[in-house]
């Protein structure tokens, strides 16, 4: 069964550095998402992306965050200048239509030192 894949599985970065998290959604999916889960807390929506533009973003998704689909397969989340509070598990998800179940990747654990 096709899967959403995320790399790396664990990223350790110094505070203030830029980080890029990578995702390869399922190939025929058209809608893409990023969520984050701070340790011990609920999963929170960050951003949804369709037709090469952001369709919705949360309050968390401020100017330090950006998303990009640089080619036909990758979907990236960039944090320009990381803060300690950005430490979390970041999940990528995709679906073929916006009201269909989303398929999630295994997540990237981001640790900011």
């Amino acid at each position, binding site marked *: 069964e096709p899967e959403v894949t995320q790399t790396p599985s664990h990223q350790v970065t110094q505070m203030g550095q830029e980080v890029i998290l990578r995702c390869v959604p399922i190939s025929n999916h058209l809608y893409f*998402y990023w969520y984050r889960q701070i340790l011990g807390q*609920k999963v929170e*929506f960050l951003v*949804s992306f369709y037709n090469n533009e952001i369709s*919705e973003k949360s309050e968390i998704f401020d100017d330090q965050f950006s998303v990009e689909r640089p080619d036909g397969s990758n979907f990236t989340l960039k944090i320009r200048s990381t803060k300690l509070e950005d430490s979390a598990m970041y999940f990528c998800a995709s679906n073929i239509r916006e*009201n269909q179940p989303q398929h*999630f990747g295994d997540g990237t654990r981001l640790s900011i030192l």
Partner: protein
Amino acid sequence: AQTVTQSQPEMSVQEAETVTLSCTYDTSESNYYLFWYKQPPSRQMILVIRQEAYKQQNATENRFSVNFQKAAKSFSLKISDSQLGDTAMYFCAFMTSSNTGKLIFGQGTTLQVKP
């Protein structure tokens, strides 16, 4: 704003028994979707079951079924014949019928299935 509440942080059940996980939500919309996702220790979020609000019939998927009470804004998950592999964190999630696909999650319930 929509909210999702799971009031049971942890639950346990004996293997082969039945367990029900609770979820309530708040919305002013009439059409929406509800989901239960499972997150095993391996981390990946896996869809368990989906319910469309306009459908009165409760969704079922093998040993998993829901009790959807629209008026009460309640969406509980029943797991029958619990198996050790059901041990995981379970998240209830809400999606509006808008065209962005945003999922709003509850806090999660950790389910431990004991042999």
